[in-house]
Structures are given as C-alpha cells and as structure tokens.
C-alpha cells in the first residue's frame, strides 16, 4: 500500500529550515481525516503557503494520489532554503509541485485569483516582538509578532483572493492567536469555519481551522453591506425582530448611524 503521508526518512533538511514538528503532523492528520472529502472535492489547484521542509505539501500530494485527477500543487516560502528543501523532499517521494520563493503569494496574486481549490497554511504563529517578523532565515518559520497574528493577518486576505468559489483553507493556529476571532473575521468575508482538529502538546494548544465559502453567510454579509449597518445594528435588528412589534420598537428606529 502506498504511503499517504511523507516519510521522515525521505525528508530533506537544512539548518535554516523548520523540520516537521507537532504542528506539521497535526495539519497532515487533519487533512488525512478529511481525505475522502478532499478526493470528492476534485481540486485542480492546491497550494501551500510556507512549505518549510515540504512535509505538508508532499503529504497532501501523496494522499490525493500523485497521478490522479490532474491536480496541480503550488508551494511558496519566503526562505529560499526552505523551497530548496521542499524540492528535494518532493523529489524523494516521487511528487512534484510548482515552487516559488516569495512572500506569501506575491507575484501570483493577480493571475491566480479565484483559482485555488485547496490552500493549506501552517503560518509563523508564535508571539514575538514585531521586529522578528519577516526575517529571511529560520525565524521566518515561527515569528508571528503580536499575539502571533502578524503574518496570519497578512495571509488571510491573500487566501480570500486566491481561493476559488469552492475553495477550502486549512489554517494552523494557537490559542493565543484567538482562533474564534479569526473565524469571526473570516465570517465577515463570507466564510463558514470549523475547528477540524485540536491538539494540546506540552508547549502549545493547536487548533486547525477549515474555512469554506458559504452562500448563506455571503448573502448575510452582502445584505449588511448594502444596508450599511454596523455589527451593533445587525445584532440589535436581529434581537428586535423577535420582539412583538410596538410602534416605538419598529426596526426603522434603530441601526441607523
């Protein structure tokens, strides 16, 4: 039986590249658990932002069947050593991905907009001082700035731009990143979300979130935008719609700013 995930013995490595760790394994476990859905999803383009050692993108390619359904894989990393290591790791497993050394998806954003069916991201999520963010060496693998959100917050709008209508995003977060806050932020862009895997290790509590576009949420969002309501107004209106109509409680009296 062909292995469905990358094998450690075949992994390439480099002192400046993040070796697969608990978070990488958790993300791959989450993808494995969703494998049946992923296969049914029939993605044309899968993308990893921040490929590191290549463990995740290689595993994704293996579990989707490297020669089935013509799915193409793209991976990026800001660290040139990481992309080189990913290249070797993929080769060792007989897989192939289009690799680009770049900051998130810079250079790909215009043309790849709305084309990515599956995106996987294990971002630098560790809370660090801001100045450590975006350095080119191995620190780029973990340095996440305030609450570990600096790079996550840069990635989310890029993901929103790149994901197709049926696109799915899998994101690794820590509790300190405020996963529910991230879900709320994404909801405002029309995404439903679910924590597909939660894992506590000695050092950290990981939450792997899956996002997908939801029509009902998108309609809700566009209605709110059209009527120019704030969150406050939306909640108020929603509550008031449950209250029996009295003249001074009419919906027209509230939510206008």
């Amino acid at each position, binding site marked *: 039986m062909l292995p469905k995930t990358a094998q450690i013995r075949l992994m390439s490595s480099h002192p400046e590249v993040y070796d697969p760790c608990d978070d990488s394994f958790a993300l791959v476990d989450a993808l494995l658990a969703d494998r049946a859905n992923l296969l049914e999803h029939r993605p*044309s383009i899968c993308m990893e932002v921040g490929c590191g050692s290549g463990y995740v993108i290689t595993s994704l390619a293996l579990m989707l069947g490297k*020669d089935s*359904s*013509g*799915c*193409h894989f*793209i991976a990026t990393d*800001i660290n*040139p050593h990481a*992309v*080189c290591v990913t*290249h070797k790791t993929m080769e060792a497993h007989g897989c192939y991905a*289009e*690799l*680009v*050394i*770049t*900051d998130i998806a*810079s*250079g*790909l*954003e*215009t*043309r*790849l907009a709305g*084309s990515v069916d599956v995106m996987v991201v294990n971002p630098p999520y560790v809370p660090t001082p801001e100045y450590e963010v975006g350095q080119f060496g191995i620190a780029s693998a973990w340095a996440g700035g305030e609450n570990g959100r600096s790079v996550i917050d840069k990635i989310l709008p890029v993901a929103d731009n790149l994901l197709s209508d049926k696109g799915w995003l899998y994101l690794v977060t820590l509790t300190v990143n405020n996963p529910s806050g991230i879900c709320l932020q994404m909801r405002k862009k029309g995404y439903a979300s679910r924590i597909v895997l939660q894992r506590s290790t000695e050092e950290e509590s990981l939450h792997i979130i899956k996002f997908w576009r939801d029509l009902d949420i998108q309609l809700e969002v566009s209605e709110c935008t059209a009527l120019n309501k704030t969150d406050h107004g939306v909640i108020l209106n929603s509550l008031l719609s449950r209250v029996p109509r009295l003249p001074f409680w009419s919906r027209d009296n509230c939510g206008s700013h």
Partner: protein
Amino acid sequence: MRLLTHNMLSSNIKGVTNGFPLLIEVEKVVEKQVDFNEDFLRNMFPKIEWKALVEASRTMGYTELPENAESSMLDSDEFLRKFHHALIELHLEEGALVCPETGRKFPVNKGIPNMLLHEDEV
C-alpha cells in the same frame, strides 16, 4: 518552472501596472514527460493567457502552439497534446523572468523562480 507557473506570475514590483507576462531569459530548458490529464487541461484553459503561453513556449524553443486558441479546440487530441506539452512538460531550469516594465530580473535556479523583492521595490 513550468509555463503553467509562468502564466500565473506577474511582476510584483511596487508601482508596476503592466507586469504580465514576464519575459523569459533562457539559460537551460529541460523537457520532462508527464501523462496528460484532459480534465485538468480543460479546467485550466479558461484561466490561461494564451498569447503569453505561445510567446513563452517559443522562447523555450517550442513552436507548435497555434497563435490563437478557443475552447472548441480542446476536442482535438492533437491540440490537447500540444497544449499539455507547452504548459506542463517544458521546464525553465536556469534563467530569469524579466519585468516587462522595469527590466528587473527575477532569477530562476534549479527550476525555482525567486520573486523576493528588495526593500525599495515593495
């Protein structure tokens, strides 16, 4: 780097409005045979900028692609094979991608393009 990727890359330099397609400077081209997948080609076709693909494949030494293409041509096996060959089987191993507006070169080494910008280009 496949031409599929080249077709998806544009110059990310600040202020550039005409960054696609990137010009290709060839140092080494490699052909790697891969089984073609019709579904994938059909899915990708509407997203491909055809002229850019034709131009790029010619720079890489492949002249078989028709000047223009439309989706009805996907019913032709011959067309599919040529499309597949240009898009998927030609690799730029060594060379550079050049911003059409500024002339700035993005190196391609071992088939991997480096799109990292300097501080003043961001």
